[in-house]
């Protein structure tokens, strides 16, 4: 979940009971809340945090895949990967814009990312040592993200919901592309199949962690559910993902790295679903708290791009000022 770091909301508001009730009634009627509408401060803060984190995840998420653009094995794959990473930048841009409607600037959000105040999805703190990781990220990471994001298309906050509609279309394309890449490897030479299996082994559990802690350990979702920012629990979404993905792995002859994985006919109200083994939450928290293999490198790369680019951004502003001044002077001279 791109927004997995969303921890708790500040429910202390100074808003009157009538105001809060009227606001909740709008949400219950499935009305969209728009940027200029009155809203409880906690709702605003929650959304700024969630949309900001989501935007940061897209931007940091450009790095692990960007790592393979120059080494993609064919021109077709090189173009597809480049276009995909570019799409992620585009998602970041819409999302920063959606967050800006709530009264925070992109610069401020960037500062928060670089200083570690704002989080991004922990999944991007894993490395991409192999080409097969490009398949695994598309198939599993984007696949898991879609499970989280499709319900966000109906999120109560209009600008976020609308941004998500477009993002989901592109993510679903990425997911299919990743799976196709993986299936080509799985059907390929033994080295390719091994590469694909190794990537699946490394990405499967972190992908399951993207949905956040078990419902039994997560006490933060209730308010977001009521506000219709979140519509399904972590476990519900995780189960959907598992049920969709396990048969896909079987179809291309890859094995899920979970000896406890088994079909359970009683799951999903008797329709059946998969039971999975215990998730190692100590690893999850370790990565969330900064101890993942790539946490430092990711922020260092973003910081370097930001700092190295400072002179370019300053020059663009200075040039715009000069132009304005010249235009004003020319106008004055003409009058």
């Amino acid at each position, binding site marked *: 979940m791109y927004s997995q770091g969303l921890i708790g909301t500040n429910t202390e508001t100074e808003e009157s009971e009538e105001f809060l009730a009227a606001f909740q009634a709008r949400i219950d009627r499935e009305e969209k809340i728009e940027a200029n509408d009155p809203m409880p401060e906690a709702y605003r803060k929650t959304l700024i945090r969630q949309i900001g984190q989501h935007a940061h995840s897209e931007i940091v998420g450009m790095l692990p895949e960007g790592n393979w653009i120059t080494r993609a094995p*064919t021109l077709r794959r090189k173009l597809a990967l480049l276009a995909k990473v570019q799409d992620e*930048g585009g998602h970041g841009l819409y999302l920063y814009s959606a967050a800006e409607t709530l009264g925070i600037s992109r610069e401020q959000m960037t500062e928060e990312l670089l200083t570690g105040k704002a989080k991004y999805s922990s999944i991007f703190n894993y490395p991409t040592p192999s080409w097969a990781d490009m398949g695994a990220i598309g198939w599993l990471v984007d696949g898991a993200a879609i499970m989280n994001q499709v319900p966000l298309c109906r999120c109560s906050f209009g600008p976020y919901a609308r941004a998500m509609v477009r993002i989901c279309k592109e993510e679903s394309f990425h997911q299919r592309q990743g799976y196709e890449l993986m299936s080509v490897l799985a059907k390929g030479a033994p080295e*390719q199949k091994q590469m694909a299996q190794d990537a699946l082994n490394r990405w499967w559990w972190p992908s399951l962690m993207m949905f956040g802690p078990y419902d039994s350990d997560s006490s933060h979702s209730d308010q977001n559910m009521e506000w219709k920012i979140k519509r399904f629990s972590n476990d519900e979404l995780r189960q959907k993902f598992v049920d969709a993905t396990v048969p896909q792995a079987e179809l291309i002859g890859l094995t899920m790295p979970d000896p406890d994985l088994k079909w359970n006919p009683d799951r999903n109200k008797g329709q059946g679903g998969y039971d999975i083994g215990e998730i190692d939450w100590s690893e999850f928290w370790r990565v969330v708290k900064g101890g993942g293999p790539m946490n430092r490198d990711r922020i260092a790369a973003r910081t370097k791009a930001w700092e190295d680019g400072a002179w370019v951004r300053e020059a663009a502003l200075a040039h715009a000022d000069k132009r304005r001044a010249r235009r004003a002077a020319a106008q004055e001279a003409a009058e």
Partner: protein
Amino acid sequence: MKPAAALADALITLGDDHLILGHRLSQWCGHAPMLEEDLSMPNMALDMLGQARNLYTYAGGLENKGRNEDDLAYLRTDREYKNCLLVERPNGDFAHTMLRQLYFAAFMHPFWQAATTSADDKIQGFAEKAVKEIAYHIRHAGEWVIRLGDGTEESAQRMGEAVIALHGYTDELFSTTDTMQICIEANLLPDPERLRDQWDQTIEQVFAEAFLTIPEIPFPQEGGRDGRHTEDFGHLLSELQYMQRTYPGMTW
């Protein structure tokens, strides 16, 4: 040499320019000075790589040696790549990258414009698509050269350094190979030398607005068209070719 073989060779040279510049631009993806540039540099890279694919695929068919776009892009030795040296120059800072793009686009725009009347239908088709794309590259890169040249003291200095570093590589854009010459005579491809005025005009216009001076170049750098590359080129190839060389003959 038969015209088809000459055309294939000339198109591979042109494809190499596009592949290598596209590769260089793609190295920025995720590391640009601002998010908007993280979108527009990959855009330009995609245009370059898309054109390379068209050129290689067509050339592969013409030469009839069973080479597809990937064989041409990935499985040659350094001496067999005939791109001009300008496009292989390392990205340097953003000023270098934008100036390199402007220099190349200012050449390719009149090139593709002239190629829309090529005696070869396929080349006409490529040209009609490419001319629109490359017009955007001139605008985008040109606007940045102006902003940086006429921005802050630091940006003006960096832009000036980029001009000194890269201008000496621009002459090679106008050079021709034997096979290009055959294609020019058969009205298949435009004569680069005849595009010089338009290139000069574009560069002069941008430089005037950017407060940049066109430097005197006593010793222009060239060699790429003959397969003699800079030291950086081998490193570029070792990255580009890594998968194809490590896992030969596989389908990806």
